[in-house]
């Protein structure tokens, strides 16, 4: 078991190196530079060249890459050109916001999806199943940002139940009050994200349960005289949840992608919003750092999925 995990981590090393190289080169390949937009248009071009030179932007790419990697190992991701602030601090404060939102969304997603998927499959072909299926198809067809905008309009604007921007209210008292306010601010984006996220899980789980219901081992269980209730508990649900559990690791990726939309639409100060902004400002150091973090989280997500799967499925347990 540990050997497998160790081996997987070893494989990740070249993956991370290739990833970092790609990330760095792609960021460099973007047209434009970080300064033109932020200084006085009448400024002397020599001044601009001086700034570029000062920041090492005229060095050959491998040298720039090498400097970047060396700094990376010292925990230094450089300074943001836009905010004039260390990237680590910049990301750090926003990562917490994104983490809470993602965590809340994940928990809600599974809270909605698991009962829905199981219920639909158990009553396959009946009315509740049809309703759940229509819901999933409709939601699946609508782009995520449209759902977000409609959600904001109905619940934030028309009904006025939830705040529509930010992560905390400006009048929140420190301590318990601020936690409450923070939670209040992630409610709507979290619920909308979960409504969208449930679709895949519901459909997947539903078809897994239906397959399991008709499987030979369930027939064997019936022939043992196991009551229907226990058949679902011990055989069907457990076996159907297995791929869902394995899927959980990958879902990290989906959440981060989702955070790009959610945070932009809600002006929620997280990594997603920072990412979109830094792209528009050519804030190379922030872009590369964020893409690298996203990439590494992706790799960790797949690793997590593999580990979960090897724990729950004896067939891929490595002795």
């Amino acid at each position, binding site marked *: 078991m540990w050997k497998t995990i160790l081996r997987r981590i070893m494989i990740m090393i070249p993956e991370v190196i290739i990833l970092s190289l790609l990330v760095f080169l792609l960021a460099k390949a973007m047209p434009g530079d970080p300064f033109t937009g932020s200084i006085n248009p009448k400024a002397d071009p020599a001044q601009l060249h001086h700034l570029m030179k000062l920041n090492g932007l005229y060095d050959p790419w491998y040298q720039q890459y090498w400097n970047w990697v060396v700094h990376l190992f010292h925990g230094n991701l450089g300074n943001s050109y836009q905010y004039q602030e260390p990237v680590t601090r910049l990301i750090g404060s926003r990562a917490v916001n994104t983490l809470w939102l993602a965590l809340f969304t994940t928990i809600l997603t599974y809270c909605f999806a698991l009962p829905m998927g199981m219920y639909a499959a158990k009553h396959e072909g009946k009315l509740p199943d049809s309703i759940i299926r229509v819901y999933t198809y409709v939601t699946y067809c609508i782009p995520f940002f449209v759902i977000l905008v409609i959600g904001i309009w109905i619940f934030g604007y028309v009904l006025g139940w939830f705040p529509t921007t930010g992560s905390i209210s400006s009048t929140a008292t420190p301590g318990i009050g601020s936690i409450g306010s923070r939670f209040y601010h992630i409610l709507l984006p979290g619920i909308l994200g979960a409504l969208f996220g449930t679709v895949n899980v519901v459909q997947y789980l539903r078809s897994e349960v239906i397959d399991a219901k008709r499987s*030979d081992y369930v027939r064997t*269980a019936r*022939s043992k005289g196991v009551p229907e209730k226990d058949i679902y508990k011990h055989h069907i649900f457990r076996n159907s949840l297995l791929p869902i559990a394995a899927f959980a690791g990958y879902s990290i990726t989906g959440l981060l992608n989702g955070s790009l939309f959610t945070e932009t639409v809600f002006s929620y100060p997280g990594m997603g919003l920072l990412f979109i902004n830094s792209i528009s400002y050519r804030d190379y150091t922030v872009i590369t750092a964020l893409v690298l973090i996203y990439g590494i989280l992706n790799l960790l997500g797949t690793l997590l999925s593999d580990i979960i799967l090897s724990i*729950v499925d004896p067939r891929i347990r490595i002795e």
Partner: protein
Amino acid sequence: METTSDFLNIKDVNTAFKINGKYYDAISHINLTVHHDEILAIVGESGCGKSTLATTIMGLHDPSETKISGEIDFEGTDLLKLDEAGYNKFRGAKIGMIFQDPLSALNPLKRIEDQISEVMTYHTKLTAEQKHNRVLELLKEVGIVDPKRTAHQFPHQLSGGMRQRVIIAIAIACKPDLIIADEPTTALDVTIQAQILDVLRKIQAENHAGIILITHDLGVVAETADRVAVMYAGQIVEEGSVEQIFNTPKHPYTRSLLRSMPQRDNQNDDLYVIQGNVPSLQKMPQIGDRFAPRIPWVKPEEHEKNPTMHEIEPGHEVRCTCYKSFSFPDQVGSVKA
């Protein structure tokens, strides 16, 4: 053949499946009796209703998709009148079932021990330790060399033959009176087949159980069974002792089946092939001899209008009257098709 030891009486059982909103009979008017200490073989081609009969006895059909009528009298209880909870008292306890495909019939995520002891959880009051000991005992009984090790393993770690032994162990765990073995050896290679059949026979001798052995392998029947019921297109066409069926087969279908089996004295000839296929449920002829289209050289008047079972010897029954004049086209006195 009627003795006092019969404990399973299947009377006029029909099972119909719903296909596109209409019900079609998969088995019709089945009458069968099973006694203690006997192996009743049910033979027939694929699609003739053998497995449907087995799952009907086990009550494994979804009531919203099937319509079952008739009576299955098991030790004085009509199984078809039971609800799910009532049926569960019989399934696994008094009736054990062995399935065709040992590769998929076990839950891939549960240890062998848990899968065997599960059946005891619902039908006995044994403690965990007693169950554990019984599992090891059962595994030994079905011929597994290292029961301790196997009990702790998962299905994918076992070979097909071992898995089938595990399934047999599950079926016999509560010493059932009736064991239904649905093609227990089909998925296994020949050497393992013989071992599995030996295990079945041994268990039967110990438990005085009655076994319904469903198979399309006449070799297995000849070797194992006491009585044989031949099924065709959802009906029993001939029933008798294994000697009667193999030595003096009457029904054209039984004779065709036997003739299409390789034997020592016909190894130089081409094997006989029965024309056509078993009709699908929707196309099943409802009147007349269902086998008639596959023996087209037999004149229509030789068939009964509504074929019934005729007893020709004690214990030997055959459906329709066409057997009296039936012969194969290449044999003397026959009309060429």
